[in-house]
């Protein structure tokens, strides 16, 4: 880039006095010896002079702050109001739960598990269920990752329209996602129990851990990194677990503990995943209580 090109780029910001001092002096020194750039500057000044005359008329007289805003300013949002916001956000998301795909995706995953368990049994041949156990958390992660993206989540629209603290959104999304998965898994497990295939806790325990953990993680990650990165991180974690699992099944254990225990309802890994998922929700709740008012809105970050 020639020197003049570099200077020409900076002329609008030289006029509005927003250049750093060093660059300002550089532009000034160049202008003193360059007629062509001075001509350009004159044109910019003409435009800069004309535009404010036109646009500033639009400002007119500043209205007073509305009573609604004033009342909010004088009375910070209470915990009850925050709770109402969170419930409101959960309610808004019925649009994506019913026709949007979250319910359909999780229900599909659970239904596949119920059918497979009814067909093959659980205790007798757990490895037959391995593909499903791998697939189910993936379905939940992808569904949550992409349905909770900015483009598709109606709650995000509400967030933009009504200033909503981040904590409220995290809490409402976690509550919704984890509640939905727990509820549907429990229904599936109940069904299997009634047809006498497995004990009540088998399906719930075997699936809830990975599903809740990965879904909770994705719910939070998608807020900050978008659907692709969030889904990518969650699926990578899950893939790493599966790799450990497969190597152990092939009797090439890579770690000191048994990952195969993941397949069993009383596996410690499942319990730890459940605990971590519960901790995520609890943190969402604590954040919500402590930071319900005054945190940064997502769109202004």
């Amino acid at each position, binding site marked *: 880039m020639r020197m003049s090109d570099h200077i020409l780029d*900076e002329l609008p910001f030289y006029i509005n006095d927003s250049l750093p001092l060093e660059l300002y002096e550089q532009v000034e020194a160049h202008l003193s010896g360059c007629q062509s750039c001075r001509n350009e500057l004159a044109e910019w000044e003409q435009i800069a002079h004309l535009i404010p005359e036109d646009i500033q008329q639009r400002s007119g007289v500043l209205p007073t702050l509305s009573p609604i805003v004033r009342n909010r300013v004088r009375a910070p949002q209470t915990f009850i109001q925050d709770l109402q916001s969170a419930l409101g956000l959960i309610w808004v998301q019925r649009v994506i739960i019913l026709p949007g795909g979250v319910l359909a995706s999780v229900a599909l995953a659970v239904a596949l598990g119920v059918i497979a368990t009814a067909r093959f049994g659980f205790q007798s041949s757990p490895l037959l269920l391995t593909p499903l156990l791998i697939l189910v958390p993936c379905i939940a992660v992808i569904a949550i990752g992409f349905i909770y993206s900015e483009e598709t989540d109606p709650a995000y629209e509400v967030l933009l329209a009504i200033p909503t603290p981040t904590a409220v959104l995290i809490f409402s999304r976690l509550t919704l996602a984890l509640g939905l998965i727990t509820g549907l898994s429990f229904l599936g497990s109940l069904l299997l129990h009634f047809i006498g295939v497995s004990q009540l806790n088998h399906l719930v325990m075997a699936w809830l851990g990975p599903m809740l953990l990965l879904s909770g993680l994705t719910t939070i990650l998608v807020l900050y990194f978008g659907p692709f990165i969030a889904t990518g991180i969650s699926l990578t974690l899950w893939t790493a677990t599966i790799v450990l699992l497969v190597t152990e099944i092939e009797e090439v254990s890579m770690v000191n503990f048994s990952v195969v225990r993941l397949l069993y309802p009383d596996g410690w890994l499942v319990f730890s995943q459940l605990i971590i998922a519960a901790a995520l929700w609890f943190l969402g709740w604590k954040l919500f209580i402590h930071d319900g008012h005054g945190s940064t809105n997502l769109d202004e970050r």
Partner: protein
Amino acid sequence: MDYSKEAVKTNWRMANKTADPDFALVRAIAHGDARAMDKLYTRHGPGLLAYLSSRLGNRQWAEEVLQEVMLAVWQGAGGFRGDSRVRTWLMIIARNRAINALKRDKSLHDKPLEDGTGSIPAQSDAGLEHNAQLDELRSALSKLPDEQRETLELVFIHGLSNLETAAVLNIPAGTVKSRLFRAKARLREWLEEKE
């Protein structure tokens, strides 16, 4: 001089808290100071209203959205870290609210700006000729693509720097410059015709 985005951001973070008088106001707002809110509104309200009027094309609608912006400022003040100037932060909020309002309520506010400028002071007879020139300028500006007009306004009305304009518009700094130069080329044609 390191003029990278990160360097400028770091400089602002360090310098803003002492150099930008508005930063103290935002801190006070975060602690529930209603007078600080009034002061910030008085200081930046006219600029925000001008910007919103321009974006929304309707004065009354702009006033409504301005209230939303101030509510967002009140609620978001606690999270403002001083990564940018307060004015830039306010413009980002205003722009997001304007975009959202356009998505949400466009059908309710379809009157053009000229019908909604009730609070603009009446012009004297002496200003009529000047008004005619302004009409010509409005016409030239209205022919510019919206993105170019918005960029011109942010730089010349609101005095934002290149990086600040890029932050408000959520585009690369180089794109700000190219938009400005395309706008200038078009306005130059208009100015030449006028002369």
